């Protein structure tokens, strides 16, 4: 069966006056029906740009410079803007990070929902309102009929994110790209939304890309994980295996910097240094300056993404194979 989404060697570059910023450089992954892919990385690692590339909303000076994005077998990079617009909000939906900013402050909730229904379905305004109301009820908003009349500022952050999710669900999309949708919310709300997202995927067979920098969110939610660093996927595989026994030193560093009950009292390990500027990435492995296992060989060539174990991919010359074997 073809996966819902397959990204092959995607390159999204920003052509600025200072030079070419390779925000996404040779990224490949696939998401199947009903599964969740966690796309993890630090700020500026290219995970959000990857999401915008899929939905076709990369703004100039950025553009997709290469690769293929196969959505149910169709290459999205070859589609016209019109055809893309038909898919957006319809078959592919996106949820943004900050619920305080994603809803238009001067338009009522019903306006913002009904326009989304009518953008993709020929139906009456009343019918569109009914669909909108049901969607609000579905994400757990009490008395949806009344809340349709409200403006965004009359909702709390968690409720606004639910509204945004309801909008994303209006057309029962095949793929949802969620760009850190719980980062701006407090922990209890975060838990509720994660649980609902998981339920949704399992029930409706929607594929989901969950972009986050929070490994603990991915651990509980995702089936697969792709770790990005400096615009490239450095490690990829089933989420449990990757988190238990990471192959790439960067993944190991990320896991080490998450507070854990097992290491209570001990100082958190951190990854030394900073993410490199994407403008002038050095030759060879982009992580080598911060990597404890780096050797001269790392500077010479850009490591290829390699399948070190079945289903376990890493972009590293010196992967932690010994840990993977022990696991």
């Amino acid at each position, binding site marked *: 069966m073809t996966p819902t989404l397959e990204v092959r060697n995607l390159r999204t570059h920003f052509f600025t006056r200072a030079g070419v910023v390779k925000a996404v450089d040779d990224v490949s992954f696939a998401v199947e029906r009903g599964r969740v892919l966690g796309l993890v990385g630090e700020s500026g690692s290219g995970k959000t740009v990857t999401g915008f590339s899929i939905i076709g909303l990369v703004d100039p000076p950025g553009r997709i410079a290469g690769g293929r994005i196969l959505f149910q077998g169709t290459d999205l990079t070859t589609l016209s803007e019109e055809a893309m*617009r038909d898919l957006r*909000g319809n078959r592919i*939906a996106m949820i943004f990070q900050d619920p305080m900013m994603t809803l238009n402050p001067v338009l009522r909730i019903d306006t913002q929902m009904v*326009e989304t229904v009518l*953008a993709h379905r020929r139906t009456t305004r009343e019918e569109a309102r009914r669909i909108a109301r049901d969607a609000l009820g579905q994400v757990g908003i009490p008395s949806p009929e009344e809340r349709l009349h409200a403006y965004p500022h009359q909702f709390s952050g968690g409720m606004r994110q639910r509204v945004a999710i309801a909008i994303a669900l209006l057309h029962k999309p095949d793929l949802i790209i969620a760009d850190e949708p719980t980062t701006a919310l407090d922990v209890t709300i975060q838990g509720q939304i994660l649980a609902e997202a998981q339920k949704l995927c399992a029930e409706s067979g929607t594929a989901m890309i969950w972009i986050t920098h929070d490994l603990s969110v991915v651990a509980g939610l995702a089936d697969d994980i792709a770790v990005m660093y400096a615009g490239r996927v450095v490690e990829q595989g089933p989420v449990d295996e990757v988190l238990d026994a990471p192959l790439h030193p960067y993944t190991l560093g990320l896991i080490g910097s998450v507070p854990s009950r097992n290491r209570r009292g001990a100082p958190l390990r951190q990854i030394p240094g900073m993410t490199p500027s994407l403008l002038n990435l050095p030759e060879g492995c982009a992580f080598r300056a911060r990597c404890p296992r780096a050797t001269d060989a790392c500077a010479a060539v850009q490591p290829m993404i390699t399948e070190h174990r079945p289903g376990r991919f890493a972009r590293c010359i010196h992967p932690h194979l010994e840990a993977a074997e022990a696991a």
Partner: protein
Amino acid sequence: MTVYLLRRLIQAAGVVLAMSLLVFLGVYAIGDPVEILISPDADQIERERAIRSLGLDLPLWEQYLVFLGKALQGDLGRSFVFNEPALRLILDRMPATLELAVGATVAAIIIGLPLGLYAGLRPDSAVSKAIMAGSILGFSLPTFWVGLMLIMVFAVQLGWLPSTGRGETVEVLGVRWSFLTWNGLSHMILPAINLSLFKISLVIRLTRAGVREAMLMDYVKFARAKGLSPNRVVFVHVFKNILIPVVTVVGLEFGGTIAFSVVTESIFAWPGMGKLIIDSINVLDRPVMVAYLMVIVLMFVVINLVVDITYTVLDPRVRLEGKA
């Protein structure tokens, strides 16, 4: 909403009262009208009779109270020069100024909004750069010079448009209007353009800044991610947000346009309030000056109120307690 309106009205009354005192004192300080009004040949008895008949023999505070008492009954005094009620003189001229100011404001919106929108959506195009350069000219060229140039080009050299007066007028509801006759409208074009040039530039720059800011907002990206057409994104999502600052500034500017249409009215011999006030200041016609300033104060207060109310309609976040 009713409570809010009531509070605003009380505030407005306070502002008008304070202004009346300031205006009265200010005008009193300018000079003694007796020197201008009474012929130098008049003898002492005649002088004193004139002073008494004008009420100028009373102490200042008493003059103010008399003025205030009469003002509350709608009597702002009689013009020394025309020997007519000052208020009527002003109200007679007001339609001329109003139609000029409204014309200028409408032109500013009709011309300024689309240009600003274009410049905001395509900031790097050559046309946008030309629009922005033009708006700088609109800001910085002095009104009187532009007025004279307009007359030179369109009235004198090309002979397309008349340069002075209101032209033919039609009486509607007891008021004479120029814009209802073709001839009157043609008389209005040049002064209205002259008056609106600054405002057009203002609207262009405001709109452009608003569009450029709004386009970067998440809600615009989210609207695009919903698959809306570009037209809907721009004309509903972006437009409604940029209207907020534009309405505020254009509304407040409207009062300024009326109050300071003096220059344009003088150049184009437009018989409005601005020309009246200049003539009155020249002959120290105190009642007219005071009445003019009071009318302007009232107008500002009303405009501010209207802007505030419009604002609450446009921006739900400032909508006041209770459902509007």
